[in-house]
């Protein structure tokens, strides 16, 4: 036991090596290190939520021109969440009548377990990873797909029609958005040639966001839907179904759902950073080992990783506080008619192009080729959307100026040229138009 050794090991995030040096190697030591790692990782995830909730409330308040929490714990309200948790913990446990006891009580526990399980493959710094599975991304997708069941449990077990409606919405949304998410994730997997999260970071001499920007965008939109955040938060739309699948939960049981949502958001931000922004890479500094053998570079890697993660978290909150909620049919239309086709085309194109590039090509040349490919696909997508939108506007008498309420008169942007005005019954619903069909903005005059 050497205090200096311990301090240096702590600073260089190599506590496992310290334990091996102190207690000798063996299966018992490894078990100790494994259990310690699991406890540390899950405790970290649970504790950081206290900070995340405060951060989100502060950020959204600032964006909405409010002050946010500013009473409990000093000027900045740092202890506001602690007080909230205290309140949640002291609340009475209420079971709604007719609730399914098993499902109702298992759901809050299982949802936190599912949210914590995926952190096992998150690489924080070189060598600081729960377990480097060679199927890392697949593992994440499997867990997040299985965790949808838990929401169904909560919604069904509550014996409440709003909870059940919320659960159905959540399942429809999450199951649908898994498709473009997996298709988009296949692009970086093709580029890296591995599904291991560590392997993907090692492959990013240039961050993949420059090689696969469209894939990054699709993945980002899918994670917004997967975490059920605005603009896709209609699984808990307050104005329609009160609070969705967790309406009947109170006290800390509700707190568990809240907790899982924040852990998940941070996780998806972390996965985005890992896959598209190069994770902990910082010009090779993250692999720096000092002269006496302590890998201090890991600390640099950790700081870089969390700087990127909190930037992504900020973007999540930015979107959350700026965009309005979209309708359920619009969400599913956006998914099946836009994101899935685009990601399929992208996957085919990237697979073929990456196969055509000979191995050993300069990384920058490869990046330029992929970037050009992405720009071409984006331009083609926009052009197709513009034509579809134009056709829709032309097919609508009145030039689409009235939206769904189509008045049969000649439009002002090309409504001429198709003969007699159509009867109203034949007017296609402009609200069902594909994405990109420009709906006119009507500014009410007060």
């Amino acid at each position, binding site marked *: 036991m050497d205090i200096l050794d311990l301090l240096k090991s702590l600073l260089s995030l190599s506590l496992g090596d310290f334990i091996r040096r102190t207690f000798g190697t063996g299966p018992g030591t490894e078990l100790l290190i494994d259990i310690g790692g699991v406890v540390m990782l899950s405790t970290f995830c649970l504790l950081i939520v206290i900070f995340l909730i405060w951060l989100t409330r502060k950020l959204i308040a600032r964006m909405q021109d409010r002050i946010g929490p500013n009473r409990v714990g000093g000027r900045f309200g740092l202890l506001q969440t602690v007080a909230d948790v205290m309140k949640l913990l002291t609340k009475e446990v209420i079971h709604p009548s007719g609730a399914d006891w098993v499902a109702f009580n298992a759901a809050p526990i299982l949802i936190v377990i599912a949210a914590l399980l995926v952190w096992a493959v998150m690489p924080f710094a070189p060598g600081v990873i729960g377990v480097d599975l*060679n*199927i890392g991304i697949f593992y994440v997708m499997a867990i997040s797909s299985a965790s949808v*069941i838990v929401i169904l*449990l909560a919604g069904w077990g509550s014996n409440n029609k709003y909870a059940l409606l919320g659960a159905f919405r959540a399942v429809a949304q999450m199951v649908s958005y898994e498709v473009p998410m997996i298709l988009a994730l296949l692009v970086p997997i093709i580029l890296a040639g591995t*599904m291991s999260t560590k392997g993907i970071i090692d492959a990013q001499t240039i961050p993949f966001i420059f090689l696969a920007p469209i894939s990054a965008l699709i993945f980002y939109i899918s994670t917004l839907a997967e975490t059920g955040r605005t603009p896709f938060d209609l699984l808990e739309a307050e104005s329609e179904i009160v609070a969705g699948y967790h309406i009947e939960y109170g006290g800390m049981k509700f707190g568990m759902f809240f907790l899982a949502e924040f852990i998940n958001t941070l996780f998806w931000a972390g996965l985005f950073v890992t896959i598209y922004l190069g994770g902990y890479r910082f010009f090779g500094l993250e692999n720096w080992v000092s002269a006496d053998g302590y890998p201090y570079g890991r600390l640099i890697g950790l700081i870089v990783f969390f700087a990127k993660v909190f930037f992504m978290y900020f973007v999540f909150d930015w979107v959350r506080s700026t965009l309005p909620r979209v309708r359920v049919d619009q969400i599913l239309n956006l998914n099946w008619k836009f994101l899935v086709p685009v990601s399929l085309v992208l996957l085919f194109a990237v697979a073929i192009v990456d196969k055509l590039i000979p191995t050993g090509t300069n990384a920058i040349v490869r990046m330029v080729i992929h970037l050009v490919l992405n720009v071409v696909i984006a331009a083609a997508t926009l052009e197709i959307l513009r034509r579809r939108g134009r056709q829709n506007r032309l097919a609508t008498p009145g030039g689409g100026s009235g939206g769904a309420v189509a008045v049969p008169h000649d439009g002002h942007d090309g409504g001429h040229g198709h003969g007699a005005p159509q009867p109203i019954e034949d007017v296609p619903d402009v609200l069902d138009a594909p994405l990109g069909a420009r709906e006119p903005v009507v500014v009410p005059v007060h």
Partner: protein
Amino acid sequence: MSQQIIFFLLAAITLTSAIVVVTMRNLFHAALALMVSFLGVAGIYILLEAPFLGMAQLLVYIGAISMLIIFAIMMTRRLMQTNETPFNSQVIGSLIGSLLVLAILVLVIGRLYPLAPADAVLQTAPQVDPAVLQSSVARMGRSFVSAEAYVLPFELASVLLLAALVGSIIIAWPRRGEEDNQ
């Protein structure tokens, strides 16, 4: 040794929840127990150094098939509130059936994996090179598309799934006549 303990734990979980599935009166709880049973099987796959298969089990059986079953149960709420016992009284028929299955299983497994002779040394699980395990997913992917391996079954399965997908869309497609009525 620890492998055996974990195996027996997983087997106990799988079998117990499987028994719960067939004896539970509440259909929803039976579906939940079925999920636990699937989870136990996934655990056995992971124990046998096949993590990809284990995760596929999780993704397909819990993420998709259990979801389908639970949705089907939720749509039939009246069916769930029955208090009838799930057993019927065909004891003799089921006894004959299960004995037949047992006999076939014993025959087939005994033929495939003959018991070691009494004087043989008890073997432990063979050690697999970690490099082989690490690249198992890549090797599996290559064997799916290589002409010497499984390209034909793989492509046939994909065509079947695609046909099912197209078929389901066609069934859900609004007919031309019905469209006017809406």
